[in-house]
């Protein structure tokens, strides 16, 4: 965190600089947006230097909820790192969990059954829909359109019910295990998923009708906070924000994991990289995600819901009580005494807001030697001052909510 006092000192110097002709008083006003401002949806501080209504420059302060995940991860066995990943982008925790499992599986080079891949696609795409629902409906709220938010949030609730059915938790899911899932989809999950596949199109259409071609909404968001494709790439944008700027980079297509290459889906892209494009890309992605869920569910292979990975995957409880070997494995996993190959892995998944990467250095010990999370919003949030320079304060709020910056991921 930078020292706030310094920012104000700097401001004095800048106050002597040129202001625009529109400026009434002829000097800049410092406006503290955040850290706990209701419109920032999280703990972000922006010290804005305002020239009348327009933003002259912004200085961000991040780190308010830094929880030292990378240091924590160096002291935990591999299985215990999954709950840490929940708390990165907590709007789509299952993607983070599964991304971490995939990283360890890559290090161990295990064969994963097709059924697990398809189950993972279903869960990850549900998470993507939940993530996009939050982001897009909140863009609506920030423009003053509360209705869409209230309606579409019922669908997010249904997704959270499905998480609950799958793993017992709703927000910080800790879903799945290294090697697969802890249990198969339950009958109740099947019922809920079928109902969701049936009901979601109508709900999303309703939301679409409320906002997508709404003249007031369009006038409000078109042209707010634009960024060009070149700048977006230079700033390391990924995910919907990069695609809204016209670059069709999606990890699911570029480096397919979890058998994403078995499915046919399109990558929506925008042209201007403004708030409307970001909104529209997410809208289209929800349709694509639904298509993926439907396809994966219809073609869900039979078989085991976890890989044969006794060193990491906890044996069934009745096995533990009746089988010596299973008891030993259970003990070894719980105590974190399983053998891990030494090596370096970089693995990434397409998270809700971009390329979520895990860079793992293993020295063969019980914990990672070093684990670095490539958090997409930490990297693209640095472009925020450039995107809002010269715009109105209300556009800055919209730009921020359309960038889908999640405090937990930003500060790790």
């Amino acid at each position: 965190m930078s020292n706030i006092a310094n920012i104000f000192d700097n401001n004095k110097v800048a106050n002597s600089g040129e202001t625009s002709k529109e400026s009434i008083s002829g000097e800049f006003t410092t406006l503290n947006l955040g850290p706990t401002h209701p419109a920032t949806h999280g703990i972000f501080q922006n010290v804005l230097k305002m020239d009348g209504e327009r933003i002259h420059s912004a200085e961000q302060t991040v780190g308010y909820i830094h929880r030292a995940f990378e240091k924590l991860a160096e002291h935990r066995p591999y299985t215990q790192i999954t709950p840490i990943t929940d708390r990165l982008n907590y709007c789509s925790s299952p993607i983070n969990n599964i991304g971490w499992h995939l990283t360890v599986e890559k290090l161990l080079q295990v064969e994963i059954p097709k059924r697990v891949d398809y189950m993972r696609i279903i869960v990850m795409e549900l998470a993507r829909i939940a993530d996009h629902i939050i982001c897009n409906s909140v863009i609506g709220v920030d423009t003053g359109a509360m209705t869409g938010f209230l309606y579409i949030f019922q669908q997010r609730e249904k997704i959270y019910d499905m998480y609950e059915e799958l793993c017992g938790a709703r927000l910080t899911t800790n879903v799945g295990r290294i090697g697969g899932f802890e249990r198969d989809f339950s009958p109740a999950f099947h019922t809920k998923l079928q109902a969701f596949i049936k009901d979601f199109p109508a709900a999303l259409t309703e939301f679409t009708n409320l906002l997508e071609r709404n003249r007031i909404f369009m006038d409000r968001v078109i042209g707010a906070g634009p960024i060009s494709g070149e700048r977006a790439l230079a700033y390391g944008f990924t995910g919907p924000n990069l695609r809204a700027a016209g670059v069709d980079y999606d990890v699911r297509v570029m480096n397919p994991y979890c058998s994403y290459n078995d499915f046919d889906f399109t990558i929506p892209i925008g042209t201007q990289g403004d708030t409307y494009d970001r909104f529209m890309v997410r809208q289209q992605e929800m349709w694509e995600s639904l298509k993926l869920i439907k396809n994966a569910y219809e073609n869900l292979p039979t078989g085991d819901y976890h890989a044969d990975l006794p060193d990491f995957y906890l044996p069934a409880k009745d096995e533990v009580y009746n089988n010596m070997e299973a008891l030993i494995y259970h003990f070894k996993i719980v105590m974190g005494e399983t053998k891990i190959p030494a090596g370096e892995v970089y693995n990434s998944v397409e998270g809700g807001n971009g390329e979520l990467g895990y860079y793992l250095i293993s020295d063969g010990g019980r914990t990672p030697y070093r684990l670095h999370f490539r958090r997409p919003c930490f990297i693209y949030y640095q472009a925020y001052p450039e995107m809002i320079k010269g715009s109105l304060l209300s556009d800055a709020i919209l730009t921020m909510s359309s960038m889908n910056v999640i405090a937990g991921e930003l500060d790790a």
Partner: protein
Amino acid sequence: MTSIDNDYLLDILQEKLGADLYHSEITYGILSIEINRHKNIELLTFLRDHKELQMSFMTDLCGAHFPDHKNKELVVIYHLHSLVNNIRLRIKCFMPETEQVIDSAVEVFPAANWMERETFDFFGIKFKGHPNLIRILNMENMTYHPLRKEYPLEDASREDKKDKFFGR
């Protein structure tokens, strides 16, 4: 779309770097090279502007600390990605603890700005030429760099936690 594989990429790098390329290996599909850290900016610029490679995307930049590697204790690791050719490259620049300075890549990749600040914050590696090298996630009055291996998991500056109460 030309197909560029790791071997071809390594040939280009060998030709470019010569003796400054210390080591190379392929781990889990990604070519990983170790280079003279004084050549980092030259190499990053070369890779970004290379007509064929077009490694124009900096995926990640992070540090790591290996206290047991004599004179190679600290490392800055770059991950580059060529979106055109879909190939990744990992570049490592090792440095001794006594001289923990490396040139900043902000001029080449603006994305490096915060990632370098983060690396400075957690490892104390100084990036020469960085426009605003201050701590980013930790408090500014912190006196240590917490991801270095000599610092314990618990806050070293805490005085309210006495070891004897915790059986240590």
